[in-house]
C-alpha cells in the first residue's frame, strides 16, 4: 500500500514529537563538555564517571529492589482481585469492590501519596524501602488487575470446569490450568507494574525516608542543581534497557503468533 503525503506528514510529526527530545538527550550524553548545551566533541567519559558515582548506584539499586518486590506483590494481589471480579459472579458488594480497585487509576498521585504518608505516620511506620514498596504495590495492583481481568473475560470457563471434572480441586484447577493459560497476561501485568514503579517520582517522594532514595528522586533533586552530563548518560542507559526489552518482547510474541498460525494451518491441511 502506498502512503499518501498526508499520512507521511502525520507519521513524521508523530515520531518527531515523541522521539526528538530523547534523541537530543542521547546525543548530549556523549558530549565531552561539561556544559550541557555546548557540543565539544564525542566522549564516553560521563559513563565512566557515572559508574564511580556511589549515590546514583545506590539509588539505582534501591529502585530496582523496590520495583521487583512491589511489582511481584502487585501481580499476586491484582491477579487475585481480577479472578474474583471476573469469576465469582454477583456477590454482595461486588460493584463497590470493583469500583474501589480501579479508583487509583484515576486518583491524582499526589493524593494517593499524601494519604499513604498520613497512614504511615499514623501507624508509626518508619519511612524507607518498606513504605515505598507498600505504596507502589497499592497503586500498581489496579493496573495488573485491569490487564489480567481483560484476559480472564475471554477465557473459556469450560477449561476450568474440565479440570474440576477430571478431579482437580478448585485450587489445583487454578494452578494447573488457569494460571498457565493466563500467564502471558500476568507477566505483562508484572512488567507494567515494574515500569510504573521504576519511574514513579510523586508517590515515592511522599512515602520514602532518608534511607531510601530512588533513582527518579535522585535525578530530580540533581537536576534542580543543574543538568549534568552524567544524568544524560544515566538516562541514555535507561532508554537503552527499555528499548531492548520492548524489542525483545515484541519479537518473541510475533514469533509465537506466527508459529501458532503456521501449525494451525498445517493441522487443517493434514486433515
Amino acid at each position: 500500500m502506498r502512503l499518501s503525503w498526508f499520512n507521511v506528514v502525520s507519521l513524521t510529526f508523530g515520531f518527531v514529537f515523541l522521539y526528538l527530545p530523547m534523541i537530543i538527550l542521547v546525543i548530549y550524553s556523549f558530549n565531552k563538555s561539561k556544559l550541557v548545551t555546548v557540543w565539544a566533541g564525542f566522549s564516553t567519559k560521563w559513563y565512566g564517571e557515572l559508574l564511580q558515582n556511589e549515590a546514583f548506584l545506590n539509588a539505582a539499586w534501591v529502585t530496582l529492589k523496590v520495583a521487583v518486590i512491589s511489582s511481584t506483590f502487585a501481580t499476586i494481589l491484582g491477579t487475585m482481585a481480577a479472578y474474583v471480579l471476573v469469576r465469582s459472579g454477583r456477590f454482595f458488594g461486588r460493584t463497590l469492590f470493583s469500583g474501589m480497585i480501579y479508583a487509583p487509576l484515576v486518583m491524582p498521585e499526589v493524593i494517593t501519596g499524601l494519604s499513604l504518608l498520613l497512614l504511615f505516620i499514623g501507624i508509626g511506620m518508619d519511612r524507607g524501602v518498606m513504605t515505598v514498596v507498600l505504596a507502589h504495590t497499592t497503586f500498581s495492583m489496579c493496573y495488573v488487575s485491569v490487564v489480567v481481568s481483560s484476559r480472564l473475560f475471554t477465557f473459556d470457563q469450560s477449561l476450568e470446569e474440565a479440570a474440576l471434572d477430571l478431579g482437580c480441586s478448585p485450587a489445583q484447577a487454578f494452578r494447573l490450568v488457569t494460571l498457565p493459560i493466563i500467564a502471558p497476561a500476568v507477566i505483562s501485568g508484572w512488567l507494567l507494574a515494574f515500569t510504573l514503579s521504576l519511574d514513579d517520582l510523586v508517590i515515592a517522594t511522599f512515602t520514602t525516608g532518608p534511607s531510601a532514595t530512588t533513582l527518579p528522586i535522585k535525578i530530580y533533586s540533581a537536576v534542580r542543581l543543574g543538568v549534568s552530563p552524567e544524568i544524560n548518560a544515566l538516562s541514555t542507559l535507561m532508554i537503552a534497557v527499555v528499548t531492548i526489552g520492548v524489542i525483545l518482547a515484541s519479537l518473541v510474541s510475533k514469533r509465537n503468533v506466527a508459529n501458532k498460525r503456521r501449525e494451525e494451518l498445517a493441522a487443517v491441511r493434514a486433515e
Partner: protein
Amino acid sequence: MAANEFAPWEDPQAKPLIRFRNVTKRFGEFTAIDNITLDIYAQEFFALLGPSGCGKTTMMRMLAGFENLTEGVIELDGVDVGNVAPNKRAVNMMFQSYALFPHLTVWENIAFGLRRAKMPAADLTNRVEEMLKLTRLERFSSRKPHQISGGQRQRVALARSLAKAPKLLLLDEPLGALDKKLRQETQFELMDIQEKTGTTFVIVTHDQEEAMTVASRVAVMDEGNLMQVATPDRIYENPNSVYVADFIGDVNLIKGTAKSIGEGQYQINWMESLPPLNAKSSLPLSDGQSCHLAIRPEKVAINAEKPEGAVNAVQGKVLDIAYLGNLSTYYVQLADGTIIKAQTANTRRISRRSFTWEDPVWLSWTATAGVLLES
C-alpha cells in the same frame, strides 16, 4: 422382549444407574427444570433432545455437579450425589468446546485426570496408550491441541473424558463443531466406542437425526419438562403428543373431532365438505372430542387416480415439489387450502416424474398410518 435385545427399561427388576427424582432447578424466577423424574440404566446411550433453552444442558450440568438442585434428588448408582463436588464424582464430561488444555500435549491432556487420581506411572502410561489407540490418535500424542484438526480434537476430548473409566460419560453436543460428513462418521465411531467400553453415555443434542442414530433411548424435552422418553423408533412412530410429533421429523397434523365406530376404531370429522377420515388408535377418546391425526409424509401415497378401496383418500393439486435427491416431497393443496405433504422415494435413476406442478392428484393412507393424539 427378545433375549438378546438391550432394553433394561422394560425390566421392572433392573436397577437404574441414574435416578432423577422430582428434580427441579430454578434460576431466580426462571424454572429451567420442572419436577423431572427419570431413570437411566447402565450401558445405555441416552439422548437428551430438545430446542435450545429446553433444559437439556442444565440436566447434564446437574449430573456433572456444576449446578445445584433446587428441589429433588439425583442418585448415581444408588447414592445421592446432590452435595458431591464435580471432582469427587465418578462422572466425566466431554465439553461442547472440547475444553482441551492448550498448554498441554495430547498425551498430557489424556493423562490429566489420571494424574489427579494419583495413578502409578506404569499403569498411567498403559492407560493413556490404550486411549490413544482407541481413538486412533497414536501419531498425534506429542502435538498440542492447536496443532491438530477439529476432528482430532474431538477425539482427544473423548479420550480424555474416557480415560478415568467413569461410570457415566456426559457428552455436550459432541459433534456440533464438525461438518456433516465427519459428523456421520463420528456418530458410528461414538457408538462403537460406547459398546467397546461399556460406559453409560448421556448425550445432549439439538440434532434429532444424531439423537435417533446413536441413542438407545431418547428423551424429548421442552421448557424444562420431559415430553416423551422412548426408543428412537417409538418416538418417531408413536409420538405421545403433538409437540413430539411435530418436533421429530416431518409430519402432517390434521385437526378434527373423534367419533368411535367400534373397538379402537375412530372416524375423524375434519372438514364439512369431505368424508371423515378413518384411524385406529388405542387412545380412549370420547365422541366429539377434539384431536389431531399425525401422519408422516412417507406414509401418504400419491396417485393420479383414486386408489381402489383406500380407507382414506383426498383429492388436491400439486402446489410444490421439494426434490431432495433420494426423496421427493410433494406439497398437495386440498380444495379448502389445507396442505398435505406426501413423500416418495426416488428408487429409479432414470425416470420421469409422474406428477408436476398443478397436477390433480389423490392422496391416500391406511387406517394405521397416522397416530391419533389428544389436542
